[in-house]
């Protein structure tokens, strides 16, 4: 049995201009201890997918499909049942450490909260556990007491506190939603390494959400490329990075500046994907990427492609996957 399985997930959000379909049929699964990356441009639905798993979407949204945790359909759980899952079975790290911590509560209180909610521990045990957690995210207790407030910490330190909070109950799954986007470049690496190490150390599965392919390459075993609410390409990270087959994936890679091809010496301009992400209000008949795809033809514009395997464990949603070699 898979640890987490998402089947045919659809998410619709009601807006003033009518319902918007943000997620259009997403399937994926994750095994115990496995690390999965979800990549895509902003607005592709990667964060919405994670919030759907946590059942933390805004009230105006509707979820269809199945979300199975250890075989249980948690999308049918009521609020109370879901509270017992969140923080205990699934932990989450958010993007903005500056705003994601409560400014009027000490970091000790905020880390302890998951333990108070999910573990039947005595106060002294909890304090001891929180100190251990701070140590494990490299915030030594001697310097970073439990009574500090978030505003007394730097961005990177706050993100470490966020991590300590998310892993407090050693959840089965840790979701990290763009955990380093808001941080200084120098700090980003340390935080990524820390998340990966902790996931391995405690045997947690990791879902790393990022728009940055480098981050995914560094931290994950499997990857899923999303575009406009659909999965475009999915497979082993090394396999997908070596043999990217969807034109969109190729576009994403081409848009990364490579070392040694800086503006001074290289004559090639950094390539971009022409056009822009489709308006979620519009309905596309064929392939959702077709309007921006240089390989598209009449078939692409007539009917939408299904996900199909091109190698064991590597599938692509495209009529004309690019085959190199």
């Amino acid at each position, binding site marked *: 049995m898979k640890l987490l399985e998402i089947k045919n997930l659809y998410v619709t959000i009601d807006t003033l201009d009518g319902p918007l379909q943000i997620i259009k049929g997403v399937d994926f699964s994750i095994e115990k201890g496995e690390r999965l990356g979800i990549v895509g441009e902003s607005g592709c639905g990667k964060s919405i997918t994670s919030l759907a798993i946590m059942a933390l979407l805004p009230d105006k949204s509707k979820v269809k499909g199945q979300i199975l945790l250890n075989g249980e359909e948690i999308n049918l759980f009521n609020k109370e049942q879901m509270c017992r899952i969140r923080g*205990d079975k699934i932990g989450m790290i958010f993007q903005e450490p500056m705003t994601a911590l*409560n400014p009027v*509560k000490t970091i000790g209180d905020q880390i302890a909260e998951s333990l108070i909610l999910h573990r039947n521990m005595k106060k002294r045990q909890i304090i001891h556990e929180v100190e251990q957690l701070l140590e494990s995210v490299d915030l030594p207790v001697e310097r970073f007491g439990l009574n500090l407030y978030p505003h007394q910490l730097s961005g990177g330190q706050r993100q470490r506190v966020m991590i300590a909070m998310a892993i407090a109950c050693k959840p089965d799954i840790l979701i990290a939603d763009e955990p380093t986007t808001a941080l200084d470049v120098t700090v980003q690496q340390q935080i990524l390494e820390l998340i990966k190490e902790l996931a391995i150390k405690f045997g947690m599965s990791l879902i790393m959400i990022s728009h940055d392919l480098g981050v995914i390459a560094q931290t994950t075993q499997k990857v899923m490329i999303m575009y406009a609410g659909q999965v475009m390409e999915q497979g082993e990270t090394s396999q997908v990075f070596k043999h990217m087959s969807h034109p969109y994936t190729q576009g994403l890679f081409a848009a990364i500046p490579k070392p040694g091809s800086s503006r001074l010496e290289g004559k090639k301009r950094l390539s971009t994907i022409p056009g822009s992400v489709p308006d979620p209000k519009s309905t596309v008949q064929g392939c959702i990427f077709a309007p921006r795809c240089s390989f598209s033809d009449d078939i692409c514009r007539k009917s939408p492609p299904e996900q199909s395997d091109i190698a064991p464990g590597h599938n692509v949603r495209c009529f004309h996957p690019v085959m190199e070699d």
Partner: protein
Amino acid sequence: MIITLLVASSVVFFVLEILPGDPAAVMLGINAEADTLAALRAELGLDKPIAVRYLGWLGDLVQGDLGISYTYDVPVSELIMERVILSFPLAILSITLSTLIAIPLGIIAASNHTKPMDFLVMIFSQLGIAIPNFWFALLLIIFFSVFMGVLPAGGFAGWDAGIFPALSSLLLPTIALALPQAAILTRVTRSSLLEVLKEDYIRTAQAKGSSSRRTLWRHALRNAMIPVVTIMGLQFSFLLAGTIIIENVFYLPGIGRLIFQAIAQRDLIVVKNLVILLAASVIVINFIVDMLYAVIDPRLRGAQNV
């Protein structure tokens, strides 16, 4: 704080100086002889230059000597003390009552946002803001005094008459004063809570498995209190204005009624000191509000960065 008080005191003094109305003339009546008038003016020190009188007054003020009322012919400090023991409890009671009404209502409205309960609370709030407090006071008198006959329609027996009769004559005024305050505070509590509930850290708390009730109480409420405390501080000066009217409705011998009468009788020395007293209390309230901020929000407790 002291500078603000000094500025306020000088403004009040000079504004009252340039206004028409000779206190000596008021005291002696319109038929007074010119030389008796002059003698009284000299006795009161009204013939001295304005700057000398200001400094003299300020010196006395610091020593707690507020002068003698022209019309009541008793020391102003005594006069004010007599009234404060009524007005101060009245103000405290109504602030307490309005807070006790407003914060729960605001919480109920915000946690039932867009549901009928929210709508009901907002109707209460709109009505409370629209209903003039003196009319509400009259309605209370009609209901509780005229029809039910359970509470006095006005007057104050004094604290010597026993705590229960005294409180019962303060009950209706307290309610009348608290209503508009509660209405505004409810609105502020609700909108502030709704604003805070959209913050990222609320989602973080939920991601830890905190229920929506727990999140509201443990995470949202304290953050939402910052604007509420601000408004409570601002409301204090409206409360002072409210006491003037409400004390008149209920014939309560308090500060509000005293200032009203003193102004009407041109008892400038009483007016002067009362206005200073009110300004000082507004300043003190602001100081308390600032301290409350620091209690609520650790970011305002002074930097102690690691």
